[in-house]
């Protein structure tokens, strides 16, 4: 285990710097080939050259290498890394530190992600187990067809359709039935800060829907494979009830790939949060990026995406280590 951890940590360092450099290099290429993002901010009414230069300097976009196409701007990269290491992610157009904005938005996104992960795990695993036990029967076909459908619907399409369904039809109907306000708040079309959990339920389910399909499929395949294993047959042969064989003996091993998937899924969830928070007007980290994109506030977009990439890389590392703890076979490869 120690050797595996050490090797994995050593691999992590080049990937970390490599990814940060890639992020940096593709950005400089965008600026070198697309033109100054600060100048394009003003459109037709360009301010004087001195003003533009001053603004560029504040946001760290004044390096002359940004005018040389193809130049990787290594000096700028090193400066940026040093700033990140000090916890300095720059400021937005209102001169607020971007880290402050993120910390304010983070709890909302964490709540949203928690709802999404809980939803996709519970429903996905239950659907997968039912499909695996009833292989080739109605329930199995039902789960297979509905997961293909869920996987095929892009997140933003699902989001806007659920939004009209819930906001236009379901909520007025529930209100007509006299449902309490905390309950109907769950079906409102936009986020309401006075209902910090209830109004995140529907967006959270939308966010979890895509992975729900993958988790159900993954649970099904891996459980079907394990139900054929010798030790499951032994458990049945010694007379254990079917629920114990499936629930304890088989499921414990069948869920190992599912747990890794949930870890890998963090990247997709962060991208999905951008879409969901944009649609439901949720002031979380994704909503921050969504708003910054609409206002063309590039420094905010760059800083938040860099931070989220760091989160993603660290989570992937932790999941890999957890995988080795859960499945001893992986350590001896």
């Amino acid at each position: 285990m120690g050797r595996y951890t050490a090797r994995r940590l050593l691999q992590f360092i080049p990937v970390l710097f490599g990814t940060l450099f890639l992020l940096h290099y593709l950005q400089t290429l965008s600026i070198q080939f697309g033109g100054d993002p600060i100048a394009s901010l003003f459109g037709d009414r360009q301010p004087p050259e001195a003003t533009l230069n001053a603004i560029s300097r504040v946001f760290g976009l004044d390096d002359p290498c940004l005018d040389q196409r193809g130049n990787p701007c290594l000096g700028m990269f090193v400066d940026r890394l040093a700033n990140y290491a000090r916890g300095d992610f720059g400021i937005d157009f209102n001169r607020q530190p971007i880290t402050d904005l993120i910390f304010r938005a983070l709890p909302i996104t964490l709540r949203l992600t928690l709802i999404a992960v809980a939803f996709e795990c519970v429903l996905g695993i239950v659907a997968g187990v039912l499909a695996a036990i009833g292989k080739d029967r109605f329930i199995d076909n039902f789960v297979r067809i509905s997961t293909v459908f869920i996987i095929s619907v892009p997140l933003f399409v699902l989001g806007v359709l659920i939004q009209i369904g819930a906001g236009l039809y379901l909520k007025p109907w529930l209100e007509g039935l006299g449902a309490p306000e905390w309950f109907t708040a769950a079906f409102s079309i936009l986020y309401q800060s006075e209902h910090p959990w209830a109004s995140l339920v529907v967006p959270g389910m939308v966010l979890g829907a895509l992975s729900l399909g993958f988790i159900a499929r993954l649970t099904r395949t891996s459980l079907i494979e394990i139900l054929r294993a010798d030790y499951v047959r032994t458990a049945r042969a010694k007379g254990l009830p079917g629920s114990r064989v499936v629930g304890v003996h088989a499921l414990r091993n069948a869920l190992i790939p599912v747990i890794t998937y949930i870890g890998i899924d963090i990247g997709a969830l962060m991208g999905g949060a951008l879409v969901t928070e944009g649609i439901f007007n949720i002031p979380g980290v994704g909503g921050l990026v969504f708003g910054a994109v609409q206002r063309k506030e590039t420094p905010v977009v760059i800083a938040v995406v860099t931070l989220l990439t760091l989160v993603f890389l660290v989570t992937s590392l932790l999941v890999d280590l957890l995988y080795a703890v859960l499945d001893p076979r992986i350590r001896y490869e």
Partner: protein
Amino acid sequence: MSDPSAAAPTAPGQTPDSGRERSASLWADARRELVHNPVFVISTLMVLLIMSVAAFPTLFTNADPTFCQLAQAYEPPSDAHVFGTTVQGCDMYAHVIYGARPSIIIAVFVTAATTAIGVLTGLFAGYYGGFTDTIISRVTDVFLGLPFLLGAVVFLALLPDQNIWTVGIVLVALSWTSFTRITRGSVIAVKSQDYVEAARALGASSPSIIRRHILPNSLAPIIVLATLNLGLFVSAEATLTFLGVGLQIPDISWGITVSEGQLIAVGGGLPHLLIFPCAAVILTVMSFILMGDALRDALDPKGR
């Protein structure tokens, strides 16, 4: 089998399997299974329909999608406008039809480019191994470290103007690695087969081994991934456009129609603004994904 003219690509020496029960070729087997699979037949017909809509939109509508009258904005479906009108007062049906083209162009371009890059790098990494493999694999690791949607948003947001090609290039830059991984894996599996050893012992050179043996035999997973990815790239284009970093307003795209209809549809009780463009996106993505799934089931001998 009713079509003996379409011989299986990897078995040029064999006679087509018109009368025989069993065939040695994976492709002939897969073909027989696919023509009897209703899901594959229906999804292929859907894909052909969507492709022809994208290529010849004028065959499907006489209305001009750029003819818009604000006085007629967001009318519900009627005889004159079967799908109603958009937020800008254009014909919704014409917008749904013309919206297919940019999505399909981007999906086909990105799939072709990522397949070419991914297959080449995957072949090198898998066939030559060693140092080449280490370099290519570390580079793919670095690219996979970047969350797909976030990466695409940040680069497109930095560009002052976006069009089909900028969206396409960013998608290519962020998604070629999946092809590299899958090609590398199947090349490594094929490389250790006896027939490759035999070819080498007979004095075949590396390029000819790659061309005659490695590539045809590791093609199946690449074709499956390409089909699935066509659907995912349609979805990615629509998502990026919806977020405001993809195609921009004078262009016609399903993502734009959905994003401009979003708040008005909910606030004003006008669901047709969303239902028709959303249905177009869902049908397109689902056709490609169902086709890819059916191909995978047919081409994966372990699944039989």
